[in-house]
């Protein structure tokens, strides 16, 4: 927790390296939204920040295990993770959108997704919130088609491009980034879920650190730096995000309107 960190003199944070635009590498150096935020944090804090780069697979385990104090990455908030982690106030929306092939004219609205094959990451928050889409489809008299689960998004996009999938669901920020890079092939559609949030997981047994990071987020927001960085990296600012930490499922559901 925070006293330990202050005594130690440095904060150990885990980040990722292949989740653009949050975390990615330019050559050998971390880049992206998080990298810039860490610069701010370094300036804000009176202790050192030591950053370690891990792949997503082992990352949350290492944090919950106490190897690191917090995961400074783009982690979506979910009911299940809230059992183990609290979240600092969110810095990006994780609302879900569908993506289709740019040249596919058969899909123009959510109702058109009726019965079509969808790709989504296995075990993800996106998968667990599919019932919301199902409800929308049923409203328009349709139903959810086959759901294909993948380990990672690069493969999902590959299968969308080669036609095995009709559409893919991902959250706001990565969707924007994808369309930025490959707008020639893919196109974004409408939201298929209520609001969702991207935030930093902090172990449940570090309440003081959570408070500290909450204050830091407030500092970023108030100084206008957060908005700037969001516009640089996400292409839009998310102005109506909650400003308090998320520590329980009930809180989360209320914020997300679930």
């Amino acid at each position, binding site marked *: 927790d925070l006293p330990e960190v202050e005594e130690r003199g440095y904060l150990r944070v885990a980040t990722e390296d292949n989740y653009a635009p949050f975390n*990615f590498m330019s050559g050998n150096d971390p880049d992206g939204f998080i990298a810039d935020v860490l610069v701010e944090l370094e300036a804000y804090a009176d202790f050192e920040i030591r950053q370690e780069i891990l792949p997503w697979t082992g990352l949350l385990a290492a944090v919950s295990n106490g190897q690191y104090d917090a995961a400074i990455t783009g982690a979506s908030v979910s009911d299940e993770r809230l059992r183990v982690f609290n979240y600092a106030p969110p810095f990006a929306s994780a609302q879900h959108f569908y993506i289709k092939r740019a040249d596919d004219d058969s899909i123009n609205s959510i109702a058109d997704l009726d019965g079509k094959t969808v790709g989504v990451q296995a075990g993800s928050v996106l998968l667990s919130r599919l019932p919301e889409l199902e409800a929308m489809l049923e409203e328009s008299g349709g139903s959810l088609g086959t759901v294909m689960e993948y380990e990672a998004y690069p493969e999902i996009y590959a299968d969308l491009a080669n036609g095995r999938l009709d559409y893919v669901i991902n959250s706001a920020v990565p969707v924007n980034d994808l369309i930025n890079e490959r707008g020639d092939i893919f196109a974004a559609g409408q939201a298929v879920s209520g609001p969702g949030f991207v935030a930093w997981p902090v172990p449940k047994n570090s309440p003081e650190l959570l408070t500290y990071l909450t204050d830091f987020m407030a500092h970023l927001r108030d100084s206008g730096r957060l908005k700037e960085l969001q516009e640089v990296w996400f292409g839009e600012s998310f102005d109506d995000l909650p400003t308090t930490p998320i520590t329980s499922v009930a809180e989360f559901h209320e914020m997300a309107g679930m």
Partner: protein
Amino acid sequence: MDGNAWGLLLQGAWTTAWISGVSILLGVFLGLVVALLRLAKIPFLDQLLGAYISLARATPLVTLILFIFLSGPTLGINLNRSTAAIMALTLNTTAFNAEIWRSAFNNFSKEQREAAMAVGMTPWVYFRRIMLPQTVITSLPNLVNEMSFLVKGSPAIAVIGIVDLTRVTNRISAVTYDPLPPILAAGALYMAMIGLLVWGQRIAERKANRLAM
């Protein structure tokens, strides 16, 4: 892909190469030791080693590496990443190599052993002068097979933050959204590394083909 990307890939390849290389050397040697200890059929130790081989072979590498890395601090040992990776790879490959060696020893000609015993060779001299030189050659295809699996399985070490060849590939494709070129390039580098081992095997075999009797 630009020159910069190639530079990163080569750095990753070097990491993969040296960590695999060290683990291969350790694994071949420790596998031999384990196989010999099992041949001695020392009660208890034999069962212990048998259980180790059985479990280590069945455990996926990623799990093993995470386990070593995460449980190290709990046990009060602070492993650096490379050490943890080498430990995990070695634990894994040793189990397979032990079975390769054991199989070679089991298949070794009974007549030759008896001839050695009859001239008064001690087990050690027999092992070193008669059995080992022949089983090294006959096990070579299998040892090189296992080495190839080790190199190919090494991407698992990325899970604790080591930037190996595969990790570099992921980093590049995360930005470009075009995974195929870096994957193919990495594939070529992996093939070059393992190709070196396979080539060595062919050379050694050609030199020793008189063993077929």
